[in-house]
């Protein structure tokens, strides 16, 4: 049994978001040190504002400015801040009902320790020095002993040079373990052999193996070496460069049924002009130092396979 393999898998993308009129006003307001809420049909003030009334579903657009001071309605102490959280030192997650608002905003409170935090305490916004139109324009909240702000007052939501979109980077960190079947397959590849698994029920050979037959629903275990030669069952000629791929175009991307395999795998065809590749072409793998999988496949020199021998593998 080969050792269990592990590798990190990071899924990361900077998604963009068009804000629409309400979120645009809210985030632009933060840039201008102005906190905006929206008035619902029943007269409550929601902060942050939303576009549609949560009770009646009406479109709501009556923006109001609320205070930059407020009251902590509940909290939780965070002793170990993680990367990219608002503060690098221990802090409290807080829900703050800003003066003039009927709902609470989630943010963080800069406090020396949990003993310094309590529900009902008064706080105010500490503005970030550089503001771009993002929730992080509020650097955090801090304790505040002054007067409360007055009632909310109407606001047009208009500012010069409004922020209309944001980038919302998302990142997921996984640890990937390929499992028993694939680990055996990978170990064989290290010795430049391609090994699949045969289904005990339908007798088809899966390459790469998945540990189970997807049609019969039974575990596969019998190891079967396939190839190394195979047949091009079908292909396309790629004429545009795919992002992040360092392959000169045009090149041929083919489905290759290795001898003995029950289905085709995908690979690049080299060692032959791209416009001479054809269905039925017999090929063999070309390995490259430092790469686990074949770099590409090249003609083996055998006569083309007859269509009837691979038409079920298209």
């Amino acid at each position, binding site marked *: 049994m080969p050792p269990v393999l592990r590798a990190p898998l990071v899924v990361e*993308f900077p998604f*963009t*978001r*068009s804000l629409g*009129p309400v979120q645009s006003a809210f985030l632009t307001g933060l840039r201008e040190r102005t906190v905006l809420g929206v008035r619902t049909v029943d007269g409550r003030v929601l902060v942050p504002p939303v576009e549609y009334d949560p009770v009646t579903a009406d479109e709501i657009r009556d923006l109001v400015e609320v205070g930059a001071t407020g009251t902590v309605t509940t909290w939780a102490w965070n002793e170990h801040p993680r990367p990219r959280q608002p503060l690098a030192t221990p802090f409290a997650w807080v829900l703050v009902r800003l003066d003039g608002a009927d709902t609470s905003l989630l943010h963080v409170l800069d406090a020396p320790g949990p003993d310094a935090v309590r529900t009902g305490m008064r706080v105010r916004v500490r503005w970030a020095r550089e503001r771009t139109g993002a929730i992080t324009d509020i650097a955090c909240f801090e304790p505040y002993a002054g007067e409360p702000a007055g009632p909310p007052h109407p606001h047009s939501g208009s500012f010069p040079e409004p922020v209309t979109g944001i980038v919302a980077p998302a990142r997921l960190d996984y640890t990937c373990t390929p499992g028993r079947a694939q680990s055996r397959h990978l170990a064989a590849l290290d010795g430049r052999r391609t090994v699949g698994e045969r289904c005990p029920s339908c007798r088809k050979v899966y390459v790469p193996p998945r540990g189970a037959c997807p*049609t019969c629903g039974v575990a596969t275990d019998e190891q079967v070496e396939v190839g190394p030669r195979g047949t091009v069952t079908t292909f396309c000629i*790629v004429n545009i460069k795919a992002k992040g791929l360092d392959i000169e175009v045009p090149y041929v991307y083919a*489905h290759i049924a290795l001898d003995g395999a029950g289905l085709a795998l995908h690979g690049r065809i080299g060692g032959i002009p791209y416009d001479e590749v054809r269905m039925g072409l017999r090929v063999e793998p070309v390995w490259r130092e430092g790469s686990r999988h074949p770099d590409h496949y090249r003609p083996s020199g055998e006569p083309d396979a007859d269509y009837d021998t691979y038409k079920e593998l298209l």
Partner: protein
Amino acid sequence: MPAEPVAVVGIGQTKHVAARRDVSIAGLVREAARRALDDAELSWADIDAVVIGKAPDFFEGVMMPELYLADALGAVGKPMLRVHTAGSVGGSTALVAANLVAARVHATVLTLAFEKQSESNAMWGLSLPVPFQQPLLAGAGGFFAPHVRAYMRRTGAPATVGSLVAYKDRRNALKNPYAHLHEHDITLAKVQASPMLWDPIRYSETCPSSDGACAMVLTGRAGAARSPRPPAWVHGGAMRSEPTMFAGKDFVSPQAGKDCAADVYRQAGVSDPRREIDAVEMYVPFSWYEPMWLENLGFAADGEGWKLTESGVTELDGDLPVNPSGGVLSTNPIGASGMIRFAEAALQVRGQAGEHQVDGARKALGHAYGGGAQFFAMWLVGAEPPTT
């Protein structure tokens, strides 16, 4: 107790475009939902449940649309659920909604599907590198082009068939005000001269990347009786799936697609789809999938689908118009594309398709597929209520 007959009484779409930077995702779905309610002359209070679908999460980074969009869709205090089936999701979302009405769980259901492709990159979402696996080397069309070549080899179809489909669908789109691509100067010569991206697929034979949403209001007999405009009646609906890759899979004509169509025809009492169905909205992301699906869906014998296309049968004024709306080739907000097919089929039998109306359409098929031909969803709608 027999199932409640299901009627489509409201349909709404956004004008599909490359990027809707003026609205949030909430604003986008709201626009389609509002239009569907207006079409049905109903208000938010008339809706009993909401069923929503979208493309896979990575496609735009929205993980829980059922949570995020509840306000915008008037779902607060009502059941709301989400359906996931990759590119076919718009179709399966409509079917889940229809089943809720048929089972009398809810009287009137709002169903909606959307995507803002401009806020992410679908190609990235489809090609996340997985450790220990051999990376795929071909880009979006590289997955489909080898299957097209296999179809050509199997049937002997002439190389021009794909361009005929693209030319037809882009001209049909000119008659559809909601379609994304409006190529007023399109000619067959231009399609045939467009760059070959993934030989045998040319640039003009590929779908665009769109922002858009589509919504429908589904209801039973009582709701249909109050409908201000003629409803479309659901005569049959089915979903099937099979693995994306398995030994013996027929990529050109997947068994799950055949089985799904057969189930729909059986429910609808259709024995000869070619004669009995008046219009088809099928999911054709690359032009060659029209002849392929014509065979898969039973409109042509194996190997004969391209002959229907080549002889003009699938043109808007042909005997079996396919994608009178311009299809996915003209409009592709992936998460919504399946529902647009279903909605366009309903528009046809309601006589509400405007300039792209097929004269006298009484029965129409809506078809969606996705996940590398893993998921299939279809419905057949008619101008008359079902008899059984």
